[in-house]
């Protein structure tokens, strides 16, 4: 799971890139990435169905991310693990996937990894896919539904022109996307209070035997962020009699000014 800033809160007037290539998001709340919430809800549903199913929430992050893990514990996830590392903007999903991979190997007996298809901020949409590759497990992306069947799972996921149902046996990585009736449930106040007292397992990178990062930044660095200027030039064509002629004329004018021919 990844903790992100609630970008919906940010005022449109504040989307200004500052000199140091950042935007002031200091007042935005920290929340669980929307797509990870879907993974979490799916995992809880599997746990509801099968009491023998053990659930773990795993994240890479600093102490700040513990409020997210406590929320997962309040929702009755059995264990929460934090790999203690400050993920920087210049770190690609490669690095995060490697840490998660090392974490999952340390946990050991894992059948199913559910993660979001992407983060709702600072995202590359790659972590789950790279993680599967590193684990040498299959990966099914854009999953909307998971149901336990015998020793495997029935998975419904989005494909180009609809939904596809596949049957898999673990271990497998799934990346979750929205579906009409999946929303993260709410934790009761009592469970939220109890979760405050629960222990969160913390691993440092040196605790992870399998941890080998070839290149810290994988050769990518942030050079600039910028907003795309939107133009909403508008011409009023109000005389119905000449509507089509005027439309053509206006479009030609617009295209000429942009150096494009009709």
């Amino acid at each position: 799971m990844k903790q992100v800033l609630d970008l919906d809160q940010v005022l449109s007037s504040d989307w200004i890139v500052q000199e140091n290539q950042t935007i002031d998001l200091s007042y935005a709340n920290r929340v669980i990435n929307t797509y990870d919430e879907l993974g979490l809800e799916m995992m809880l549903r599997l746990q509801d169905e099968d009491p023998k199913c053990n659930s773990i929430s795993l994240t890479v992050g600093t102490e700040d991310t513990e409020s997210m893990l406590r929320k997962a514990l309040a929702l009755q996830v059995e264990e929460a693990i934090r790999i203690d590392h400050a993920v920087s903007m210049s770190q690609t999903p490669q690095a995060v996937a490697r840490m998660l991979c090392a974490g999952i190997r340390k946990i050991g007996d894992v059948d199913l990894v559910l993660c979001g298809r992407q983060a709702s901020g600072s995202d590359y949409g790659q972590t789950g896919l790279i993680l599967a590759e590193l684990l040498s497990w299959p990966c099914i992306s854009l999953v909307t539904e998971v149901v336990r069947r015998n020793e495997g799972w029935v998975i419904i996921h989005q494909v180009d022109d609809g939904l596809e149902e596949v049957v898999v046996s673990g271990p497998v990585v799934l990346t979750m996307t929205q579906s009409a009736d999946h929303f993260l449930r709410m934790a009761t106040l009592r469970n939220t209070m109890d979760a405050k007292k629960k222990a969160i397992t913390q691993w440092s990178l040196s605790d992870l035997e399998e941890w080998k990062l070839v290149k810290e930044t994988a050769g990518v660095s942030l050079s600039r962020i910028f907003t795309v200027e939107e133009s909403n030039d508008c011409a009023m064509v109000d005389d119905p009699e000449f509507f089509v002629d005027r439309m053509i004329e206006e479009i030609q004018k617009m295209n000429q000014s942009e150096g494009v021919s009709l």
Partner: protein
Amino acid sequence: MENQKVIETFEQMVGKEFVQTEEAILQEYATDITGLRMVQKHFGWKSENLAQCIVKIHTKEEAIEAIRFLNQEKIVNVPRTGGSGVCLGLETPKGSVVLDLSEMNEILEINEENLTVTTQAGVALERLETVLNKKGYTTGHFPQSLPLAQMGGLVATRSIGQFSTRYGGIEDLLVGIEGVLPDGELVRIKNIPRKSTGPDLRHIWLGSEGTLGVITEVTVKIFPMAEDRCMQAYAIASFHTGLAIIKEIMQAGWKPAVTRLHDETEAAESYGPFMQAGESILLFLSEGPKGYAALEGEAIQAVVEKHGARALGSKPLELWLAHRNDICEHLDMYAKQGAVADTCEISAMWSDIGKIYTEVLERAKKEVPHLVAITGHSSHSYEQGTNIYFMMGAMCAPQVEAAQKTYDQLFGIIMETTLKYNGSICHHHGVGRYRAKWMKQELGSAYPMLEKIKTAFDPNGIMNRGALLPVE
């Protein structure tokens, strides 16, 4: 009369295309957006008490004819406009007729000399506000349901807006009104700034919730747009200190248009990065003619500093302004998460309001087994007291009955505690069908007045039966 005859009569009266009878539409019109129904629908609830038809009313003449016919046939009807009610006031009794005035939506006159606007009942408040803003005016009325509510419903529920300390509730804004009584008589109360000619008859319509007739037209005040604004937010150690601060500001005679106090849970949820553990947040927005806002802003600052508040600048206010009505786009957000959630607003005198807040929170935390949260804020204040707007949610088994039980328990705690401390069970959402069962306790020895008014106006009991007054 048989249903088919009723439908045919209305088809002749208003035109076939304006009478709807399809079951899916009747289901949609069967209730309003009360939190209870939102979650129950998620668990499969469907109304067993459908209206026989929805009649779209476009003129006062149609309204008169429709009501006359319904009265003659003794058929219960439910008037409605925006459909944003939250107390089951729109829940259709079986076989009733819904009179939908939402397409009766002309802005009739903007009078810049007297500063009034006259509209038909179905004018959407947000549209009216946009039209007025372009001319440099405002209604000063901003309920959170601004994108949903319409003028008739706003008057019929005694609504209030987020800038109420300066502009007042709808009762302070209403200048004149026209409506059709249950016997079909059209009555108008003319536009006058103030008068002393017996009881103020506008108050028969204000809060009538469709039980005393159908509102067809309203005239409300308008105001020149404020020239200046001053916005400030403060963190304070406790909710009760916040109440004391607001009391002091109100009683000193200041009227910050927006005066809000959110408790620690709401503060952390909406303004997390500004807050320290346990703090509540105060939001003030002053506005008015040039010079007023700064003057009021300084006076507020002096009071809050005396109480040891921590200044947070204007950002929290900017955030509040930008997001204050977001919920209208996600009305079923909590229901989708399987939670029984709603809001409940009560009011009381300064001597009692703090006790109600504390006791409601204590009781809910102790008594409601799967409580998710219960929080409160004060958002409309007066010299004599304030309101508390409780927001509550609890999980339950995904069943219609379980949701009802949980909802009744949560609401019951708030109603009982409010009545225990002589508060009012409803500050601005109206009574509807849900709170009607507490109305006798609410009004006490004055209850027969309401009963007598209802019987005098509507002897056949055709107007929104079951709303406002409980059915015996």
